[in-house]
């Protein structure tokens, strides 16, 4: 798998709905168009919420996987 360039990282581990999404929105806002955010979350709801949020906002969920109970998402800002 080719490595994706990460522009910023957000650690939302330990936080529950709605905070991982609220903070993701803020982090994405601070990125330039096409920038990639790496999000770490332990909220199980994030597994469905993050794809739902990227669909609503038009940002792109590049990939996600689980690493020792932590969900890692790579999100590319639209534009």
């Amino acid at each position: 798998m080719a490595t994706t360039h990460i522009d910023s990282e957000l650690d939302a581990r330990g936080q529950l709905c709605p905070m991982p999404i609220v903070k993701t929105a803020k982090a994405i806002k601070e990125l330039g168009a096409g920038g990639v955010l790496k999000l770490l979350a332990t909220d199980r709801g994030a597994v469905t919420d993050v794809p739902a949020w990227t669909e609503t906002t038009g940002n792109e969920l590049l990939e996600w996987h689980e690493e020792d109970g932590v969900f890692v998402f790579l999100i590319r800002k639209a534009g």
Partner: protein
Amino acid sequence: MLGEQELMSVPGLSEETVRHIVQEEIERAAARDQAVRSAAFIASKGTLDWAYPPLILATTAAASGMDTSVFFTFYGLNIIHKDFERKLKVSPIGNPAMPMPVPMPNFVTGLPGMGPMATHMMKSMFAGKHVATIAELLESARDLDVRLVACQMTMDVFGYSQDDFVDGVEFGGAATYLAAARNAHVTLFV
């Protein structure tokens, strides 16, 4: 523009092409629809447990790029009252769904001290799981430009003044809510 029936009757246009054109037109119309990006909630309940749903939905809607407003009416005014920390309580009376430390008949929950105990218990449970506090959700709502509107009529009935509410609250009535709601696909009464 031609209607679907007329398009079908144009020689040389296959049904598939017509369906494709119609689908594109629908998508274009949806992209122009501002209501897709708007949400208008009503918060009418003034207990700690019921303060969460409207604030969680409103912050998430705003974080999803939607123009979002919450209209606080009747007991919902508690949520944006400056003294919300003290005013928002949870009552186990008549709420058999509330998890209790030990099983007990619901009438016992009416005994003195049970209300404060239930409130304390819920706050500890939420803190233990790292659920955002009401103060944090209100702060997020402000950061995300969620419009917080207090119902002037119920304020008058309950004897509240505008100074009783947290910063950034606007004041209005049913027409203010409806003006927001008629332009929003997502409207919910909580």
